[in-house]
């Protein structure tokens, strides 16, 4: 070992759901998402781990894989790093292979494959608690002897066995890699694994009885889909019901801040920027934090408990009709919170065409950023009337969600027959044992989402609202000009130019002006309308008048409906496009996505406008 160079690197490897991420968290204390869905670890996760001698090693949580023959981008990364063929990541100095003790046979096959690489390696025999519970006894000493590798029993979620693991990792680092042996045929590995597993397992009980009982209901052909539908219903219900109170607090807090700022700052451009630009714009976004956190809390619990893979099972057939597979369900569900984590979650989809299609339709899932727009528009234009059991406003909101989903399905069908043509790779996945979600991991996961969201609010959204404020305020019209300041401003001029494009589908000047800033983030469109309308009037009373009332009096109904439909399909925010570029390695697909969504939104909004105008008059 050379002490002058960077710290040695240890890679965590193993089959999906072996407990790599849990072990990584336990070893490093790093903040990272833990989930049950195979392939949830899609990003490179590095942390520092202290060894018993006080030195530190760098530890990397590699994506789970079943073998060194990659089937997905995820697995490709793992293979490349382990083979020392990854462009950026150096080859690990040692490997910790995480093995699920309740599923020894299959996990040992991978251990045997890895062992042939010749790199120093320790086996972490994880989930030993579950093996105990099932009545399975594993002779660790004999396992170690047969494998020719150190074996350390661990329980990642209870932090058991970590010290021993550190000790073994330390001794591994003094060992040199030997040249890799010849690759073996998978059958030979399977048979060797089976032989070893049988030899070291002295007592095997009926495994996973609880999981079996739950699955009898959760995967029941009739009850299964009913339960899934009920869960989704409760989830969306909770997103609205539970978030109401915290959202009201945030709104009140922002209003108070605006008042303080207005009182404390001298009249002038700076005060206008802070109150009308920053506080109004960023506040309008931060208000959605409660909804996003609630939605993610549900998704994390579903993932950690193991239910998510069951949902994928139940959805697979429906997905197959539009040329996708059940795995697409998880990314698409995440996209209801935000398309960005959704698109990143597609990395676990093996087939490139399946994956591309899922990426391209993910923005059609109604992300939480669209909610503010829906909420304002519905409050302004849809009567708060009871229809049977349901409320008309609620029905319209539900309708908009369904509209997005149906649009996505149709888009998938078309994409699968055109740009993403090709036979699907099918659907095959492991369904892990059910687990109680671990509160600590849940909180870490939520914290990460919250931080990402707030960073966005503080970064791109803050920047764009300030920019919009500036565009809407400058240049100031000369004294005596009969043009209103907003018309004279840059925003007004851009709006006028865009109006040529948008007026055929019923959009007015104000909507046209929001088009550019809305690219920063969808929720900006409400803030933008707020800015535009409050800047458009000097009348104090009109300023007090809420945006809802303003819109109601200023927009004809067909325009409002067309705008709502536009928001369902419209090209997504720049951050989404940036993620698509990263995930597809180029500009081709983000440009394609922008174009197809723009065309779709334009046509649908236009149809809505003309049809509703013909009907309403």
């Amino acid at each position, binding site marked *: 070992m050379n002490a002058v160079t960077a710290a040695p690197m240890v890679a965590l490897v193993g089959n999906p759901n072996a407990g790599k991420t849990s072990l990584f968290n336990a070893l490093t204390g790093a903040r990272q998402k833990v989930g049950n869905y195979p392939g949830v670890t899609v990003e490179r996760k590095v942390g520092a781990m202290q060894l018993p001698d006080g030195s530190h090693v760098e530890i990397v949580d590699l994506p789970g894989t079943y*073998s060194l*023959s990659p089937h997905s981008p995820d697995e490709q990364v793992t293979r490349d790093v382990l083979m020392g063929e990854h462009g950026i990541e150096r080859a690990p100095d040692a490997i910790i292979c995480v093995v699920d003790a309740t599923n020894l046979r299959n996990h040992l096959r991978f251990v045997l494959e890895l062992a042939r690489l010749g790199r120093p390696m320790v086996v972490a025999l994880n989930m030993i608690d579950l093996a105990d519970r099932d009545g399975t006894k594993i002779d660790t000493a004999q396992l170690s002897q047969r494998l020719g590798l150190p074996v350390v029993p661990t329980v990642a979620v209870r932090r058991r066995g970590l010290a021993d693991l550190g000790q073994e990792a330390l001794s591994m680092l003094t060992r040199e890699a030997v040249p890799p042996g010849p690759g073996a045929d998978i059958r030979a590995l399977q048979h060797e694994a089976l032989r070893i597993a049988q030899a070291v397992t002295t007592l095997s009980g009926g495994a*996973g009885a609880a999981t079996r009982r739950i*699955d009898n209901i959760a995967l029941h052909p009739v009850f299964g889909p009913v339960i899934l539908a009920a869960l989704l219903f409760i989830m969306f219900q909770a997103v609205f019901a539970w978030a109401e109170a915290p959202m009201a607090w945030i709104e009140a807090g922002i209003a108070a801040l605006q008042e303080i700022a207005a009182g404390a700052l001298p009249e002038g451009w700076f005060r206008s920027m802070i109150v009308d630009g920053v506080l109004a714009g960023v506040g309008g976004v931060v208000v959605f934090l409660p909804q996003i956190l609630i939605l993610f809390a549900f998704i994390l619990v579903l993932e950690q408990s193991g239910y998510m893979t069951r949902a994928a099972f139940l959805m*697979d057939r*429906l997905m197959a009709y539009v040329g996708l597979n*059940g795995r697409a369900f998880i990314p698409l569900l995440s996209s209801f919170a935000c398309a960005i984590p959704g698109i990143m979650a597609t990395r676990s989809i093996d087939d490139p065409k399946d994956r591309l299609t899922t990426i391209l339709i993910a923005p059609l899932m109604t992300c939480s950023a669209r909610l503010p727009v829906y909420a304002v528009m519905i409050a302004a234009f849809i009567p708060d009337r009871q229809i049977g059991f349901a409320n008309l406003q609620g029905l319209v909101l539900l309708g908009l969600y369904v509209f997005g989903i149906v649009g996505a399905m149709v888009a998938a069908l078309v994409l699968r027959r055109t740009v993403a043509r090709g036979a699907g790779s099918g659907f095959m*996945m492991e369904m892990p044992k059910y687990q109680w979600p671990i509160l600590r991991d849940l909180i870490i996961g939520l914290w990460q989402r919250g931080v990402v969201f707030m960073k966005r609010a503080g970064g791109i959204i803050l920047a764009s609202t300030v920019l919009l404020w500036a565009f809407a305020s400058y240049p100031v019209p000369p004294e005596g000009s009969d043009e209103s300041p907003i018309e004279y401003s840059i925003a007004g001029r851009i709006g006028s130019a865009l109006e040529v494009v948008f007026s055929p589908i019923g959009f007015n000047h104000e909507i046209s002006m929001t088009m550019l800033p809305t690219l920063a983030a969808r929720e900006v469109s409400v803030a933008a309308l707020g800015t535009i309308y409050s800047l458009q009037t000097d009348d104090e009373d009109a300023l007090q008048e809420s945006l809802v009332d303003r819109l109601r009096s200023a927009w004809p109904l067909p325009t409002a409906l067309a705008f709502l439909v536009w928001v369902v399909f419209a090209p997504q925010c720049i951050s989404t496009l940036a993620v698509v570029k990263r995930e597809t390695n180029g500009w081709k697909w983000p440009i394609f996505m922008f174009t197809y969504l723009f065309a779709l939104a334009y046509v649908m909004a236009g149809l809505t406008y003309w049809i509703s105008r013909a009907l309403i008059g």
Partner: protein
Amino acid sequence: MRIEDLKTGQSASVVKIRETGTHAAEALRLREMGFDEGIEIELLHRGLIGGCPIALRVGNNVIALRKAASRLIEVSVTPAGVQAEAAE
């Protein structure tokens, strides 16, 4: 026989995995998921529409897959008694 011809709850053992030609990649995946000649499987669940996908117990694991992939696997039903005798 084919896996889809099993009754729900019925066990069988894998006789053969077809892995020629275009099936090679899918067959490799099946092996990685734990399918192997001689392994005992059990048909646990079927999807509502067309009985697809299906969930199988493979050793200690539960695997979901589509009918098309399951057709690469040939199984035979061996009554527990016969199996035990064979093991004697």
